[in-house]
């Protein structure tokens, strides 16, 4: 089974909820009782169409305000793939939600209202998806029905967006443009008769055709040890299994590995998934590994292949996204959670703030507020084993925890 996780981005009222509702409706993923609820509420509100946005807008507070305020997850599947949509709100003040939704996604849909075209918000949505190195971005130019399905309008928006693409850091990102009407259903699941000039795929066709291997981040194998399994039963008296998830690449029985931080070498003896042995542990599989030699490995340590070591350092510089209402200041201390490893960290230097709308940087920065993005150097109380984010999406990222409130207050991408 293939699972594709998609983040959505769009400003308020661009039609994100409607688009998702439309996808659910046209793929027959809405259940009878949900459909009934939508019909009933649409009628109550006096609409002469079905308000699909009601399929996603969740919490009571949101219904009152009529806006989405957090990351919501929506599920649907076709015969080919299972889809998880992380629906994230588009306001300026919710950059943090967008970063959150995008962090686990392989694809993103950026919505543009055809009447408004590329606006400052669009820059932000694109910036964040690019910062997070989402491989596959779909730019859905929505509400085409309100601009008479004009090819010129569409092309003008496309060309504005392409100017933006010149400024991006991650150039290999694949970008596809699709003219849609979420409300009327044009080019969402079914091909539209209103856009004869558009010969490309519909949104769903495009998602269905995505090659999962191509949108995944393949790098070099990293195995952070989550948990050590020691059954101490008669049958498994000497069993010491290292439980964890394989990231970036595969590991196989017989591979020569190094345990970090001790730098002790050994070989992979067995790979278990539950009670079965496997020759290879695939990327993102949660396995248990045993080694030929008895070496000391505990939670937070990492197994890597010999000759393929990550950087082992007590200091790093990263782009961070700040997510807390309390400011980040130079000199403050936080816990860096890097995978399953936690270390104490001090903010050594805030280099500059980065405007997420491609309008430049602020050199003169002493503190960061909620939703700021900045380049920051951290000093750690012990070394971590990292890769650059651009080489390894998992081993190059971390979160920041507040030492007092324990909250997750930021996310970082190692430069």
């Amino acid at each position, binding site marked *: 089974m293939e699972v594709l996780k998609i983040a959505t981005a769009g400003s308020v009222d661009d039609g994100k909820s409607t688009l998702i509702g439309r996808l659910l409706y046209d793929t027959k993923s809405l259940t009878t009782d949900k459909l009934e609820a939508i019909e009933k509420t649409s009628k109550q509100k006096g609409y002469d169409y079905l308000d699909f946005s009601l399929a996603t807008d*969740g919490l009571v507070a949101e219904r009152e305000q009529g806006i989405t305020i957090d990351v919501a997850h929506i599920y649907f599947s076709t015969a080919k793939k299972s889809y998880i949509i992380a629906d994230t709100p588009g306001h300026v003040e919710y950059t943090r939600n967008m970063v959150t939704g995008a962090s686990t996604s392989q694809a993103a849909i950026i919505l543009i209202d055809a009447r408004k075209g590329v606006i400052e918000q669009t820059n932000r949505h694109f910036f964040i998806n690019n910062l997070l190195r989402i491989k596959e971005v779909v730019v859905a130019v929505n509400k085409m029905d309100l601009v008479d399905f004009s090819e010129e309008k569409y092309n003008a928006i496309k060309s504005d967006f392409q100017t933006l693409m010149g400024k991006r850091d991650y150039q290999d990102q694949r970008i596809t443009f699709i003219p849609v009407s979420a409300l009327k259903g044009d080019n969402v699941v079914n091909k539209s008769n209103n856009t004869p000039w558009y010969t490309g795929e519909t949104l769903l066709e495009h998602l269905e055709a995505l090659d999962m291997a191509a949108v995944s981040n393949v790098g070099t194998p990293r195995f952070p040890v989550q948990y050590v*399994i020691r059954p101490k039963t008669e049958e498994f008296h000497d069993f010491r299994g290292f439980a964890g998830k394989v990231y970036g690449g595969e590991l196989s029985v017989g591979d020569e590995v190094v345990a970090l931080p001790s730098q002790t070498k050994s070989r992979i003896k067995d790979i278990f998934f539950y009670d079965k042995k496997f020759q290879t542990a695939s990327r993102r599989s*949660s396995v248990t590994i045993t080694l030929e030699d008895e070496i000391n490995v505990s939670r937070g340590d990492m197994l890597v292949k010999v000759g393929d070591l990550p950087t082992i350092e007590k200091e790093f510089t990263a782009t961070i996204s700040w997510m807390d209402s309390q400011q980040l200041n130079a000199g403050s201390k936080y816990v860096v959670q890097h995978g399953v490893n936690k270390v104490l960290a001090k903010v050594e230097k805030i280099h500059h703030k980065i405007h997420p709308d491609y309008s430049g940087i602020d050199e003169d920065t002493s503190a960061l507020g909620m939703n700021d993005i900045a380049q920051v150097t951290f000093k750690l109380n012990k070394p971590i084993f990292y890769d650059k984010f651009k080489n390894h999406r998992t081993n190059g990222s971390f979160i920041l925890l507040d030492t007092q409130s324990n909250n997750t207050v930021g996310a970082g991408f190692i430069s």
Partner: protein
Amino acid sequence: MKDTSHINPLENEAIYIFREVAAQFEKPVLLFSGGKDSITLVRLAQKAFWPAKIPFPLMHIDTGHNFPETIEFRDRLVKELGLELIVRNVQDSIDAGKVKEESGKYSSRNSLQTTTLLDAIEEFKFDACIGGARRDEEKARAKERIFSVRDDFGQWDERNQRPELFDMLNGQIELGQNVRVFPISNWTELDVWSYIEKEEIEIPSIYFAHKRKVFLRDGLIWSHSDYVFQEDDEEVLEKMVRFRTVGDMSCTAAVFSEATDIASVVQEIRDSTISERGARIDDKRSEAAMEKRKQQGYF
């Protein structure tokens, strides 16, 4: 042949979450209702820790209004796997005067479970409670985190949730707080059923079509039972039915079905167009019901 049975992404994610719970918390507990979701959780936990035993107990908050099949099943499973089972009864909370039994036509003990659960968490000092909730079940659940922090009163503050990025789960909490953990957050109902089929997991017999005395009300099929209030004019019928969830008898409706084995149940679910919660009577009371109960500390 390349064996790829270990690369189901949802299963790998759930196993990863179980291991994080065992590593990050001192006293986790798996909330076990006897339903298919919690049975699936037990299988996933087995996989996460094999060849060691599951390193935490199960706890059942018993409303006393269960289907007898569920309880038999529960006790057998626990015995076979050599697990520790804690049972706390809603009846005891009622007897102690902490909660009041609901009365009337729609009375149910489902919402009373909250108090019993919170008391049990305090009694055992549990810092993580693993549950089988899924985000696809209900709109309010769609925003639930995988590690969801609850305050001293078990309350959920949906506006102030910790962001969850990448695979990283932040389980750091203060004394008195606890975390609800949802390893199958990203599964759909069909995913769970397909997994049960693929893994040949045994589930209680009431999930399969059987003859049962029922009556109809509000377009739903109710079990005829001492625990369920029934009007005199509500006629008892004998029908082939099965259950899609097995909560408290007083709030779990059946569906007509001829599916007597897992393959045909999976097929029926695949074809069906009524969501699972549509058969949970308590959710019909109000659209915002789940959200309200969650703020009060419900699972």
